[in-house]
């Protein structure tokens, strides 16, 4: 089986959620299929500037083919177009212009997908919201699989994505909450899909002692791993943590990740900067707990890694996915405001038995749903199912694009309103139709 993994960026040094997810999946599926990665020359997801050379290369033994991005993103234009489609009644043409302004616009990549000599049995597209996924699915709908990595943000409410969600051969969801949201906005219940997520390789030799020796941090601490960015909930995290520390909280806060915002100058908040995988696992081994403050996540890989290492987590309850996962796994607590943050953090700080119990549940949850053999099984099962299915017989074809006039009729509702109407909250045990993450 020849399989293309199509993703907006790719590289060992790119550790964004969807991109890392795509790399892990590509490397795993390469054990079962002939995998090629198709991506762009961009390294920066804000500008999409071409930084890698176009053409073929090999990364971790996998063939990777890069295509240039035709135009960089103009933030001013993107802001204007976002305002139009998210906040005002608009047309499909407006949404298409928004998609182009978001990028990464790579016509060369799309041309490659439809070349008969490079015909793939299946193309697995990552991140529904980008240019390559939308136009790529439209180009090869009968062979298209989609890992949407959708979050509850206004983009999911745009009308142009409905036919994509309804027209692909199969969807690999990250969580039940993501599936519920996509099914609500697109009505794609008929499309075969599986809630699968992504696995992780946790090293056996993670060492808390090594972490303490390298960093000099000996006090007990809560750990945050990820981009330090207001969009990741870090502003609230700092404000909540300083309140907790000022009222007698005994844990320090350690941050590991690149910085996109000012970090308060506080002796109780320690910043490690960007860390290697080994340093990350050492930090997880030394921490009392992991904090995940992001309000928008389709799947938090570091949360899964913390559970794999038996560490409890404290997550932002405003994120349906994270809250659903801690409730289903009984492996962490959540907060929705400052008093809950302080109270849960104090509780975890002062109750080693509770921490151990939550951590044990996390490890069990990880071993049941996120070990690689389980992830592989779900992917291969879906591929086998699709091999036996005739999409035409199943009545699923990609809806045609409306005509010139149809695309220009301003009858589409603001995307933010569409998302606002979608049901909120985690999918609780018993509500999900299968015993998966």
């Amino acid at each position: 089986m020849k399989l293309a993994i199509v993703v907006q960026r790719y590289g060992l040094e790119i550790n964004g959620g969807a991109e890392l997810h795509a790399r892990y999946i590509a490397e795993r599926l390469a054990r079962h299929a002939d995998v090629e990665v198709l991506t762009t020359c961009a390294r920066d997801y804000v500008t999409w500037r071409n930084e890698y050379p176009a053409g073929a290369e090999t990364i971790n033994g996998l063939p990777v083919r890069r295509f240039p991005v035709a135009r960089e993103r103009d933030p001013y234009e993107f802001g204007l177009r976002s305002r139009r489609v998210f906040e005002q009644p608009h047309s499909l043409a407006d949404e298409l212009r928004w998609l182009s302004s978001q990028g990464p616009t790579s016509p060369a990549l799309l041309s490659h997908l439809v070349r008969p000599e490079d015909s793939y049995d299946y193309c697995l597209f990552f991140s529904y919201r980008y240019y390559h996924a939308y136009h790529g699915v439209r180009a090869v709908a009968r062979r298209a699989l989609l890992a949407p990595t959708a979050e509850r943000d206004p983009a999911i409410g745009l009308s142009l994505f409905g036919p994509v969600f309804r027209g692909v051969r199969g969807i690999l969801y990250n969580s039940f909450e993501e599936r519920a949201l996509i099914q609500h906005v697109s009505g794609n219940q008929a499309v075969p899909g599986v809630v699968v997520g992504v696995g992780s390789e946790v090293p056996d030799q993670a060492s808390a002692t090594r972490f303490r020796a390298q960093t000099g941090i000996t006090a007990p601490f809560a750990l945050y791993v990820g981009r330090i960015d207001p969009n990741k909930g870090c502003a609230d995290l700092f404000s909540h943590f300083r309140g907790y520390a000022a009222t007698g909280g005994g844990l320090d806060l350690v941050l590991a990740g690149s910085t996109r915002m000012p970090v308060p100058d506080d002796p109780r908040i320690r910043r490690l900067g960007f860390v290697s995988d080994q340093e990350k696992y050492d930090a997880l081994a030394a921490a009392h707990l992991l904090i995940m403050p992001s309000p928008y996540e389709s799947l938090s890989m570091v949360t899964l890694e913390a559970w794999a290492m038996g560490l409890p987590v404290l997550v932002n309850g405003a994120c349906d996915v994270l809250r659903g996962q801690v409730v289903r796994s009984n492996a962490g607590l959540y907060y929705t405001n400052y008093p809950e943050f302080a109270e849960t953090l104090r509780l975890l700080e002062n109750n080693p038995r509770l921490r151990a119990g939550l951590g044990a549940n996390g490890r069990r949850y990880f071993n049941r749903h996120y070990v690689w053999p389980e992830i592989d099984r779900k992917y291969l099962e879906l591929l086998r199912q699709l091999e036996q299915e005739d999409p035409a017989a199943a009545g699923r074809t990609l809806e045609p694009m409306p005509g010139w006039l149809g695309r220009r009729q301003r009858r589409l509702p603001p995307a933010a309103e569409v998302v606002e109407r979608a049901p909120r909250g985690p999918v609780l045990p018993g509500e999900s139709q299968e015993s998966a993450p």
Partner: protein
Amino acid sequence: MSELPAQPDDIDVERIMEQIRARIELRRRAESARAADEAATDAEPAGNRATRRRMESAAAADPRAAALPPSEWFDFHGHSIYWSSRGGVGRVLYGSRRLLRPLLKFVFNIDPMVDALSTQARLNAQQTAFDREVARRLAAHEKQDVLSRRAVQDLTAEMQRLSSEMKNQRRLVESMSQRLGALEQAGAGEPAASPNGDRQPEKPAGDAPPSPPPIVETPPPNR
């Protein structure tokens, strides 16, 4: 949080969260009662200041304020009308349009329109800032209203308790005053003190009628 489960299988996150919320609610009530007490004795107590600070921080995180568009979306300047989003072609278009501006002026005067749009952009930005402030204050007031409602409910309950207590006290005072009146009537015909200077023992309290005054033998006067 004494009933925390010890075994992983016994852990129920939702139950723990309910306990945590209940504890927070208890503490919040205690704090609001303390703040109300302090407010009664101090014009600007620390408790109120702390409550107000909490409310303001909650208001700052209000989703209504977060939902408003950022001000930079309203950026508009004199050259915006010539701008194009088409990359390199767009830059050529932009240059051409600016170059042809004098020709455009033969057809109509673009400047008043640019001025009007600039003003509108400024007004939009101001309005957004104003809306954000209104959302912030609204959230603060909502928090204040909840606290005030609870304080009024607590005060009403306290007033009812005090009123009932006052009635009991009044009945007690009336009963005491009746008994005092009876004692005064009974004491009108007896000496205020015994011959040896001691006070007469008081009659036991009760509803029994006062007993008749004792017969006292007085010595004959010296002649």
